[in-house]
């Protein structure tokens, strides 16, 4: 396991380095004068020169890059142009909200997908199965920037059951989490259904049945357990989609997380903050992918990474 972890982390390093470099290039590729883009055309040349000095933009690009890497290694993402605070501190205050939202979305997706997927597989061709198929088709087609406002119209405006926006208790969390988790629920329902149907044709299932195990045990202990491997992979891969999707969802429900912060940073042309947010989301994505690989290895010891 130690060797596997070391190997996996070593593989991650060039990707991390590349991602950091790409974000640096991107932010430095702002067309025209980046200082003018940040301060506006009417800013005085003294202000522009002061900002350029503060950001190190008066230095050669290579010097700027080395400084950027050095600061990043120390966890320093620079200072926000808009409110002068430290970018790392600003992001840190928003992480709990985004984490809460993405975990709730994931929980909702699993709560929908498991019962629906299992029911559809057990009663293949039934009304429940057809519903599950329709749900997964529509769940994938409905964009979250439409689903969010629709849920808001129905449950907050028309019925008045749930708050329109903001962060508070479980009532505030439900609609944003449902909006964010719907696509994942659709993908997982489909995966669990098809995974179970495929598994039920395996020899070991026939053996389990021949041993006289009751049907419930065969499904839960043997079939479902093996389908879990693909579910873990999809959950891991989809976590990135959840993080990216949080930008739209947080903007719809005024949820105070990293997604909304990213958008605010873009609107105010706060490039150090944009850079910090993009890197934080990308790093979290890579970390979750690594965690998925490790969990994958734990639940299925047959998997090796020899190459």
């Amino acid at each position, binding site marked *: 396991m130690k060797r596997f972890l070391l190997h996996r982390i070593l593989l991650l390093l*060039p*990707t*991390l380095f*590349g*991602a950091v470099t*790409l*974000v640096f290039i*991107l*932010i430095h*590729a*702002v*067309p025209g004068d980046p200082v003018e883009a940040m301060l506006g055309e009417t800013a005085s040349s003294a202000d522009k020169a002061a900002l350029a000095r503060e950001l190190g933009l008066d230095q050669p690009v290579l010097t700027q890059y080395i400084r950027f890497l050095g600061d990043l290694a120390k966890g320093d993402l620079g200072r926000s142009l808009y409110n002068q605070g430290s970018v790392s501190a600003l992001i840190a205050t928003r992480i709990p909200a985004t984490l809460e939202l993405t975990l709730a979305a994931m929980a909702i997706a699993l709560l929908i997908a498991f019962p629906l997927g299992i029911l559809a597989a057990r009663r293949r061709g039934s009304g429940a199965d057809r519903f599950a198929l329709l749900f997964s*088709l*529509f769940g*994938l*087609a*409905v*964009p*979250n*920037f*439409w689903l969010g*406002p*629709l849920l*808001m*119209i129905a449950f907050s*405006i028309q019925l008045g059951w749930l708050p329109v926006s903001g962060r508070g208790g479980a009532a505030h969390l439900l609609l944003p989490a449902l909006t964010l988790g719907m696509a994942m629920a659709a993908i997982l329902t489909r995966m669990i259904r098809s995974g179970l149907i495929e598994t039920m044709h395996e020899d070991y299932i026939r053996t389990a049945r021949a041993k006289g195990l009751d049907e419930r045990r065969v499904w839960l202990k043997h079939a479902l357990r093996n389908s879990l491997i693909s579910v873990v992979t999809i959950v891991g891969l989809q976590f*990135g*989609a959840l*993080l*990216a*999707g949080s*930008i*739209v969802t947080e*903007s*719809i429900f005024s949820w105070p997380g990293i997604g909304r912060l*990213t*958008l605010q940073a*873009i*609107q105010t042309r706060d490039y150090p903050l*944009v850079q910090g947010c*993009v890197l934080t*989301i*990308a790093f979290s*994505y*890579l970390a979750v992918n690594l965690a998925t690989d490790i969990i994958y290895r734990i639940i299925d010891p047959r998997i090796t990474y020899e190459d």
Partner: protein
Amino acid sequence: MKTSPALALGALLLAAFVCAAAFAPAIAPYTATQQSLDNDLAGSSRAHWLGTDKLGRDVLSRVVYGARISLAVGFTTVALSIVIGFWIGALAGYFRGGVDQALMRLVDILMAFPGILLAIAFTAVLGPGLDHVVVALGLIGWTGYARLVRGEILSLREKEFVHAAAALGGSPLRVVVRHLLPNVLPALLVQATFGVAAAIIAEGSLSFLGLGAEPPTPSWGAMLNEGRQFILVAPHLTAYPGLAITITVLALNLAGDGLRDRLEKRGK
């Protein structure tokens, strides 16, 4: 081989949207930008079946013209991604070794960013506008195609017909274009169908966030963004553009599923 119902339904719905896009001036009762300020935020009526927006523009006409934007962005983006992805995948798969390693690390780096995040970063830097959306989505969307083409070419290049083509003096370019490309095309077509759907949602997301189409362009995502301000008084501004995106994406996903099943059956 019989056409599956999913493929038929997907193709039919898609054809309807393509027709709407192509013949928008003939189908739409008004132009997309024709204003009627004394009739703003009106509900459905005989004159305006789907109501009007904040400037009194006909929502049905804007939804019909919006099909042009969504489909054009979707197909252009995917075409750009396929061109880049095909050549990078072909180079990696054909030459293997160091070229393959270097190109696949580049793919890994781009894939380190979840979905739309990099597109948001690109458009944040380039500024809003549909042309920037196409460039951003095209430049980041090629990685999946590159991996697919590389995988296919790695397995195809050991086949006898490829060895024979090379032995007869065919240059790598000729072997790739004449012999490998036709074999990779079906799988590319399936992935492209899902790619167009993803690109339409991505454009909608960017326009919804104010980073894509600029007013008065009738992009479905931008219409939803405008509708947000009037969600209490005019929910129809939110309902119809979103429905149009959903049906288009549903059509493409159905067509993609049908094509994939067909391809898998043919492969068996």
